[in-house]
């Protein structure tokens, strides 16, 4: 009898904790979804706005659904309206960005790979200091180098050009690429390299035959990181280029700010999506590598 009472009250207790658990679970999902909607909200608004006509925008609200798939403002954002002067559209600047990103990513990745290789596998006295010396470059506020950089580009005759921006992005990417490769190679046993050296393999042979074949993940991380950084850059682009040589972010900003006619929010949103889509695609396809770059760019070691 007594046992029975005991067990039933225990059951009650268990029942109760089961209910609180279910409640907590619901609460958990509620909060998570609430935040998810806060994060997704601007993207949703961008997409639906870009598909509306200005008439629909004035009549509806931010959230209202477009009447149909209307890509007119995308066409205007990408290729203009077809009247000469004052018709700004993104296509040429999109290609500027491509022409800037590809070489800058390749150069900075290559230089960083070499530096990371030397710093871990061909160590020399004071290599730690050399690493620190390079690493500090990740953090400097670029305002401290804008003025001399502008003059240097002028002296070299490459101010306001894609080549100038390639140089700038290559140089200021080196600290990050070196950090990535150095931290990756440091975890690879040096014995491999030592054995190859005894067998008479040289500096480059060891790199290309032993390290490069296993470097795929870190190369992907580095390329994605550099691509995102350079594609999204605005400070260098807006300081060192204007007019026809400008990269896409600068062109987007100019388009949105230009107050020549009535504000066309649908074209603005389409432009913003076009400027953001390459990095967004990379993020969706290779999110894992993107996050790895993000966290190891921050948490060194």
């Amino acid at each position, binding site marked *: 009898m007594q046992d029975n009472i005991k067990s039933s009250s225990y059951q009650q207790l268990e029942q109760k904790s089961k209910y609180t658990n279910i409640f907590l679970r619901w609460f958990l999902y509620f*909060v*998570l979804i609430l*935040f*998810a909607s806060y*994060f*997704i909200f*601007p*993207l949703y*608004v961008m997409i639906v706005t870009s598909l509306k006509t200005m008439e629909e925008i*004035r009549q509806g*609200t*931010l959230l209202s659904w477009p009447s149909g798939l209307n890509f007119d403002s995308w066409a205007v954002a990408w290729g203009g309206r077809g009247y000469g002067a004052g018709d700004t559209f993104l296509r040429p600047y999109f290609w500027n960005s491509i022409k800037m990103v590809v070489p800058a990513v390749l150069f900075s990745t290559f*230089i960083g790979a*070499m530096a990371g290789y*030397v710093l871990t596998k061909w160590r*020399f006295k004071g290599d730690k200091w*050399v690493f*620190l*010396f*390079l*690493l*500090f*470059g990740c*953090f*400097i*506020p670029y*305002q*401290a180098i*804008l*003025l*001399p950089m502008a*003059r240097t580009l002028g002296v070299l005759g490459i101010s306001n050009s894609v080549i100038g921006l390639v140089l700038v992005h290559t*140089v*200021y990417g080196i*600290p990050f690429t070196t950090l990535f490769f150095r931290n990756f190679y440091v975890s690879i046993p040096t014995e491999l390299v030592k054995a190859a050296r005894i067998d008479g393999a040289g500096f480059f042979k060891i790199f290309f035959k032993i390290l490069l074949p296993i470097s795929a993940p870190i190369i992907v991380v580095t390329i994605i990181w550099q691509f995102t950084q350079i594609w*999204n850059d*605005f*400070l260098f682009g*807006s300081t060192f280029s204007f007019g026809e040589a400008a990269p896409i*972010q600068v062109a*987007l900003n100019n388009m*949105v700010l230009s107050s020549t006619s009535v504000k066309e929010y649908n074209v603005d*949103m389409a*432009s*913003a*999506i076009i*400027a*953001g889509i390459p990095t*967004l695609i990379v*993020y*969706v396809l290779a*999110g894992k590598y*993107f*996050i790895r770059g*993000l*966290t190891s760019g*921050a*948490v*060194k*070691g």
Partner: protein
Amino acid sequence: MFKWLEKNLPKIVMAPAVGLIGWFVYGFVLWTLYISFTNSKILPKYELWGFGQYEKLWASRKWLISVDNLLVFTALFLIFCIVIGIILAIFLDQKIRAEGVLRTIYLYPMALSFIVTGTAWKWILNPTLGIQKMFVDWGFENFTFDWLVNREMAIYTIVIAGVWQSAGFVMALFLAGLRSVEDEIVKAAKIDGAGLFTVYWKILLPMMRPVFFTSFVILVHISIKSYDLIVALTQGGPGISTTMPALYMTQTAFHKSQVGLSAASAMMMFMAVAAVIIPYLYSELRRENAR
């Protein structure tokens, strides 16, 4: 000759990186430092002028507003990013269904430029057709939300957009940190009768000290450098109510042609970043040496 080349090959390969950074980072910072002590206007002058530019800077109302804004922005940006980041990380750590999708949603703003997201927020926050109209249309007829064009409140729109962009990043750092804690510790605590709340509050979060430190450093660093977002959202306006040091620097240099003064403001930013970063690098290096 060949022997020498072979022996020094690693250093030769290393040379471009060291040379480029030496020149373009350290050389340029020193140049800026030097120019900040001269009376340069449109063109740099090389006669020393003492601390005149710094005196001018700290007497400038616009600079003082910039610094003030930076402090307000940094404080709110830090608090909201870290609190939201931790909540999301802890909640996601509860064996959530569709964790991958949620994580992707929380982090995608990091893949977009501040110009893209700033453009979107500017549209959302604009008083005529944006969020204000949405609530009015829903029947809240007296609802006003004009922060974007309100001198007192405009700085908070930058906080909203900034937190939206960076909170996911803090979440990723904390989630990685929580996942690296061994299960045994949590299990042992649970056997001792500790509830979930206690486990996080008393055990796991205190273990996340390095993650707090890293987030703090990275976020402060982002906020001191913030430039793109302000350009896209407010251009420092209305008036000069949302200027920040980075915007002050470029405007002074390239619109007002006050090269010396802008160099001084750049050096102030440099010192602020260095004050946060150097202890960080030092502690990271020590941790690595200890391993």
